[in-house]
């Protein structure tokens, strides 16, 4: 029986569309009927069936309420307005089919009844929608300016921007605690909603507390509701934020606790608060650049990438959060200068280019020069001599160039001093015999000629 109840309950979202359809259809017929009375007989039929299906919707709706564990407060408006709609349908039916007992209604103009009815149906439907999709479902896509004009509460997540460099100078409340509370708590604890009479959007409001009194006991986090309620296990009724809302991370909670323990300062920097760096390190923006240019670029077209990959050239995103690409010819040893053309479709995205072990020649530099964001260039195990290396001196992001096992010649080394960002040059097994130039540009560029040796030591041959 329970199964049947539950099943019927779950049919509610389907069934509700029947009365909506019938009743709106009836209203529409009434509208069309206002001058030429062509549909007069049909209108009560629509209301009759609308009323019947509305009763079915009410019953299944009630079953769903019982079976799915909704709180009565959540559904009460929908429930009562649903019942009202069902009753109203029959009222309309009786009035329009001219039943005598409803003669008291004759004085009320039909247009008024219809309008009230239309509003009632819309209201019921909207309430139902709010239950399934959430209260802000309909208005959520509106821009914030429109929302505030409509008087709908707007919510803007605040970012925590801490880095290895700035964390000490950052404001403890303004830059860290406030964004945490704002992003995880304020959507319910704000002047418009104020659940539990508690506001968490300003220092004063936080200190004031809510209906259960103060929420902070200075220097004692384990006796402060602000911390304790977040720390409670999810299944505890007193846990905050409630299930279904965005939860604070364990680092968030730990930090709020530490902040209370240190006397919940609202002013001053993190350094002044005396809190440990470890508490903040998880908030440090995962700086994603490492070596690659610190600019935003648009993603390369997927079509171009697929076309390039079909030729055997390997294309990878540097990371999922970056639009820069790493291009490698590891599976295409027969890559030649001419094959480079295809890469031009993604030229701005290429940050790492590995054309080592390929058949490229010194003419390739003219083309490499077209990759503005190139950071790492691998040309190892090619026949490059370096005579055109000057062509790529314009690459302002190029940091590493690998020329291991090439024919690179000594006379071209000095040309590297024109490279603005270059840091590492690998010239092991190149055509260079003397290694006197180890750095360029006052040490900014270091050259590794390799050729390391491990001379035999007397201990090498002692077996114990």
């Amino acid at each position, binding site marked *: 029986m329970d199964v049947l109840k539950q099943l019927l309950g779950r049919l509610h979202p389907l069934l509700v569309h029947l009365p909506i359809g019938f009743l709106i259809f009836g209203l529409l017929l009434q509208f069309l009927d206002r001058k030429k009375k062509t549909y007069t007989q049909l209108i009560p039929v629509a209301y009759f069936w609308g009323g019947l299906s509305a009763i079915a919707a009410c019953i299944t709706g009630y079953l769903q309420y019982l079976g799915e564990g909704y709180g009565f407060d959540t559904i009460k408006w929908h429930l009562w307005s649903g019942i009202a709609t069902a009753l109203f349908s029959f009222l309309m039916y009786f009035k329009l089919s001219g039943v005598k007992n409803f003669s008291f209604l004759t004085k009320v103009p039909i247009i008024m009844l219809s309008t009230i009815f239309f509003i009632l149906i819309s209201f019921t439907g909207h309430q139902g929608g709010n239950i399934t999709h959430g209260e802000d479902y309909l208005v959520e896509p509106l821009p914030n300016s429109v929302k505030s004009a409509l008087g709908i509460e707007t919510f803007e997540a605040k970012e925590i921007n801490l880095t290895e460099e700035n964390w000490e100078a950052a404001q403890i409340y303004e830059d860290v605690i406030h964004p945490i509370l704002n992003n995880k708590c304020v959507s319910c604890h704000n002047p418009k909603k104020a659940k539990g009479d508690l506001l968490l959007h300003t220092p004063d409001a936080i200190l004031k507390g809510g209906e259960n009194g103060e929420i902070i006991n200075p220097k004692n986090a384990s006796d402060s509701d602000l911390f304790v309620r977040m720390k409670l296990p999810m299944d505890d009724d007193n846990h905050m934020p409630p299930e279904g809302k965005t939860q604070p991370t364990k680092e968030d909670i730990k930090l709020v606790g530490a902040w209370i323990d240190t006397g919940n300062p609202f002013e001053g920097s993190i350094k002044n608060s005396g809190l440990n760096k470890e508490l903040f390190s998880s908030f440090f923006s995962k700086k*994603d650049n490492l070596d690659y240019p610190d600019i935003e670029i648009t993603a390369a077209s997927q079509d171009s990438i697929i076309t390039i990959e079909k030729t055997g050239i390997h294309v990878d995103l540097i*990371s999922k959060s970056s639009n*820069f690409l790493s291009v*490698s010819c590891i599976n295409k040893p027969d890559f030649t200068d001419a094959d480079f053309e295809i890469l031009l479709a993604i030229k701005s995205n290429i940050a790492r280019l590995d054309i080592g072990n390929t058949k490229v020649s010194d003419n390739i530099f003219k083309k490499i020069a077209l990759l503005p964001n190139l950071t790492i260039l691998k040309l190892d195990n090619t026949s490059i001599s370096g005579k055109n290396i000057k062509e790529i001196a314009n690459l302002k992001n190029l940091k590493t160039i690998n020329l291991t096992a090439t024919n690179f010649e000594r006379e071209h080394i000095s040309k590297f001093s024109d490279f603005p960002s270059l840091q590492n040059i*690998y010239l092991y097994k190149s055509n260079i015999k003397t290694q006197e130039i180890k750095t360029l540009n006052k040490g900014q560029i270091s050259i*590794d000629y390799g050729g*390391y*040796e*491990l001379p035999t030591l007397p201990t*090498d041959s002692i077996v114990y």
Partner: protein
Amino acid sequence: MKDLIDKLIQEKLAREAEAKTRRHFIKNCAQGIGGLALSSIFAGCDPLTTAPKKTQAAFSERDLNPLATLAPPYSSKVKSVIYLHMAGAPSQLEMFDYKPELQKFDGQDCPQSLLEGKKFAFIKGTPKLMGPQAKFKQEGESGNWVSDYMPHFKKVVDEVAFLKAVHTDQFNHGPAQLFMHTGSARLGRPSIGSWATYGLGSANQNLPGFVVLTSGGNTPDAGKSVWGSGFLPSVYQGVQCRSKGDPVLYIKDPDGVTRDLKKSTIDAINKINKQEYLKYADPEILARINQYEMAYRMQIAVPEVMNINNEPENIKQMFGVEPGKESFANNCLLARKLVEDGVRFVQLFDWGWDTHGNVRSGSIDMGLRNKCREIDRPITALLLDLKQRGLLDETLVVWGGEFGRTPMQENRGNKKMAYKGRDHHGDAFTMWMAGGGIKKGACHGKTDDIGFSGIEGKVSVHDVHATILQQLGFDHEEFTYEFQGRNFRLTDVEGEVIKEILA
């Protein structure tokens, strides 16, 4: 004749029924119903011909090639990992963790306070402390300690970052090795290399993404599970290659089978597989087709990359290789070659570090010296060779054992042992990392005066894993795989990135 045909038909039906597993059945039902619905909407479209096409479009590259590369969530310098594991557990007290105070207590009874509540594998009663058997010096600009057991290593000491206070909760080889490589002392979890290849794939389409090389005459006590894929698809397990004989068993074609014949065999198999695919639309079949083709390419590529004879003489000399033999030196050179060719994860195991003092080869003052000599030159050469090729920036090298060894001399059976030895000890031991993203010359963590426990900068095995994953571009807390109804992580519910050794 009719009987025979009946029998064949029966057999065919039985085969087909076998091929239709429950999963296929359910899948087909779902597709069938979807197809029916579609066909009623788009009259004239035959659901049987449209269904497979639809699903085909939904496959990712990963379905077809499980080793297809994926971008890491966060950008990272590291493209490959070389993990050097000294199976048996090397003595940190004779290699990197210099404890002059311990020398003062040499021969004295170990204080009871240290022994209380501790479990040791063999130590009984009250053992005696044993001073360091090696001579130490501060080396390089970093001034980190290196013993005279590792005379070549001092040349690269400024490249590595030491972790002096790693601890584990296991004190027997098998479970400790499993813990070190899978994050759990019990069987069934994927190894680090499997996680890495699962998460990132591997660029070189002719080589496996995760290669394992062993030396020292034995494989690790924990068996192949230390490079197993656990609950991850088995394609991500380590492929064990050998430096002696055929690099992969049965890689050569049998006598009389030419390359062309092999090719046409594989083509024929794949043709049948393609027909099966058209019938069942199961992506596993496409993955299998891909695997056949990769195996065919590997037959050429693997022997090529595993051949160290073609390396120049000076490189062979620097590593101290012995072509044709199974040696750690050969494996180090191979590791460099593999990484150079884009292999994602290379795992080296060297067996023979279990220096209890029960035999000469397992003694702290003799056997251990021999083992150190066997790895000293190759490891140093490996770091230098990666460096000169510009590969060290993009490779993470990790060195360690499964635990450390006691500051006390082992007294198995409460008797004096034939040789000097140390028992298993998980409270504090040394590991190091070098390469991409690692702070050169760093030293994190400190042990007490006798090297018994960490007193500063203690890190757990989970922390080491979190750090390795971080260097590969993962947040170890976000990198999960759903299995048996929950998400699993390499670091389980623990682990913190060791930021102190990151550049």
